[in-house]
């Protein structure tokens, strides 16, 4: 693989860029692989990458029914943070965040990780308590966060309205090394690095059945033929329930539409990521100048990748109240993605009732930030055949035991 660099660009410029090769191969599937991953989104590709890189397992295929990175990886609001309350969540999200720090160099693909900082606004006394609780936890977990006062919030985000009549900003939880990354580039970078290691990424290949032998997985049937494998990973956010049914088990998951939108591009206005949970809105500005805004999720099962417009209205309303100058900006585009919601809103990583079939799903509305950590952990789990240190707490059995990993605890929602 040609290394990417400024020098390589300069050399190619001389011949009108006709010399660049493919970023990833477009292989015909082999009859058999050691490991097959279903789903070439960020999580699936990262799993394959770390299988190769950390565990030397390169006889791996990633099959994808559409195009790689075309699911939630390509339609999220790209926020990266790890200021979670529970130890188990903080561990895996912080692992992911720290991998993001050097992901561009690791993959030789600029994923534009931008640690511009993430602010979570506290707008009620209850929210202050919740975020202070997280701050205390994070300090002891080794996650760098800080609760800051309204003046410092204003300094970080000059366009914010601190003393709004309804919900004044009372402070914020600040994670200075949180931020954003270029979502497509994360998928493309992993894909290119996987391909370079000899891992096959097979796009336009829909799985139609999962084959089993003696209670263990033996392969898959796809629109591009049968592929046998020793181990199978299901990494298909939004479609986990459908794949699980093929594999013969049920998941504690429901699929709902989550929406997002962007404004027209404007000159730099907001330099950090701001999340306002009381009023249900979060916002950042892309490197292109668009305000990227996350909206709410529908409360009903839905596979259409379209949501209901009133969520957009509620979000925009709240953001105008918090950032009054955006009132005269315009919404350029809105879209939806399908997210997997589990019973405690935390992910599932681990074994399934089907032997040698593993699953990584249920990331809900927060999957993008977890990609490197999720892939790292899923790869280790699949390589060893049992959950690694990060996945241990996220097994499906927690629901039967009543052992939840509930992050809404600190969300400032009055229970």
């Amino acid at each position, binding site marked *: 693989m040609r290394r990417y660099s400024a020098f390589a660009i300069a050399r190619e410029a001389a011949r009108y860029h006709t010399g660049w090769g493919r970023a990833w191969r477009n292989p015909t599937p082999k009859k058999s692989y050691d490991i097959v991953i279903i789903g070439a989104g960020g999580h699936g590709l990262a799993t394959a990458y770390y299988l190769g890189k950390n565990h030397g397992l390169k006889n791996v295929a990633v099959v994808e029914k559409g195009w790689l990175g075309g699911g939630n990886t390509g339609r999220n609001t790209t926020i990266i943070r790890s200021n979670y309350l529970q130890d188990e969540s903080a561990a895996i999200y912080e692992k992911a965040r720290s991998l993001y720090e050097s992901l561009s160099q690791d993959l030789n693909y600029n994923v534009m990780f931008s640690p511009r900082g993430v602010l979570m606004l506290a707008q009620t006394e209850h929210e202050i308590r919740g975020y202070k609780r997280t701050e205390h936890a994070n300090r002891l977990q080794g996650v760098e966060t800080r609760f800051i006062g309204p003046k410092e919030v204003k300094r970080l985000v000059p366009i914010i309205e601190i003393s709004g009549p309804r919900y004044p900003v009372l402070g914020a939880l600040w994670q200075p090394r949180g931020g954003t990354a270029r979502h497509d580039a994360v998928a493309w970078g992993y894909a290119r690095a996987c391909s370079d290691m000899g891992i096959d990424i097979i796009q336009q290949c829909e799985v139609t059945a999962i084959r089993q032998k003696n209670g263990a997985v033996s392969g898959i049937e796809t629109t591009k033929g049968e592929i046998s494998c020793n181990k199978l990973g299901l990494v298909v956010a939004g*479609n986990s329930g*459908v794949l699980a049914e093929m594999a013969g088990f*049920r998941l504690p998951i429901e699929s709902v539409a989550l929406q997002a939108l962007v404004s027209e591009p404007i000159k730099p206005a907001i330099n950090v990521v701001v999340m306002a949970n009381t009023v249900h809105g979060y916002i950042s500005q892309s490197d292109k100048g668009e305000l990227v805004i996350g909206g709410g999720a*529908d409360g009903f*099962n839905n*596979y259409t990748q379209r949501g*209901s417009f009133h969520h957009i209205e509620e979000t925009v309303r709240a953001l105008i109240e918090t950032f009054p100058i955006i009132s005269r900006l315009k919404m350029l585009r809105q879209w939806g993605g399908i997210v997997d919601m589990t019973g405690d809103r935390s992910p599932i990583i681990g074994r399934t009732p089907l032997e040698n079939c593993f699953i990584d799903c249920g990331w809900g509305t927060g999957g993008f930030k977890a990609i490197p950590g999720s892939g790292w952990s899923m790869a280790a789990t699949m390589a060893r055949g049992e959950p690694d240190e990060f996945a241990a707490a996220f097994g499906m059995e927690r629901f039967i035991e009543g052992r939840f990993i509930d992050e809404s605890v600190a969300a400032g929602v009055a229970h």
Partner: protein
Amino acid sequence: MLSLHCPYCGVDVDETDLTPGGEAHLVRSGSGSDDADFEAYLFMRKNPRGVHFERWRHSFGCGKWFHAARATDTLEVFGTYSAQTKEPPQDVQERIRARRPDWKGFGKGDRI
């Protein structure tokens, strides 16, 4: 923005007047149930890409819960009916069969 027919008020109602309530026809597992049944009751939801039965409350209207038979892949609604039923009424099931010939029937085709 869904619009559902409230079977009690007899009017079509915007989604913003309603509260979604998840899967319909759940059977409660209370005291004495075994772990697997109880887990299934609390967490194991049907999540089909296709025909689905779910609960809604006309919360800004009559306050009544009702059930809807709806497709999760197209958002088509096959009918709404009383929440005080153990299974979808025959006419609703027939309408689903007419629109979705491959539908396996209520409670059937759930492999697990």
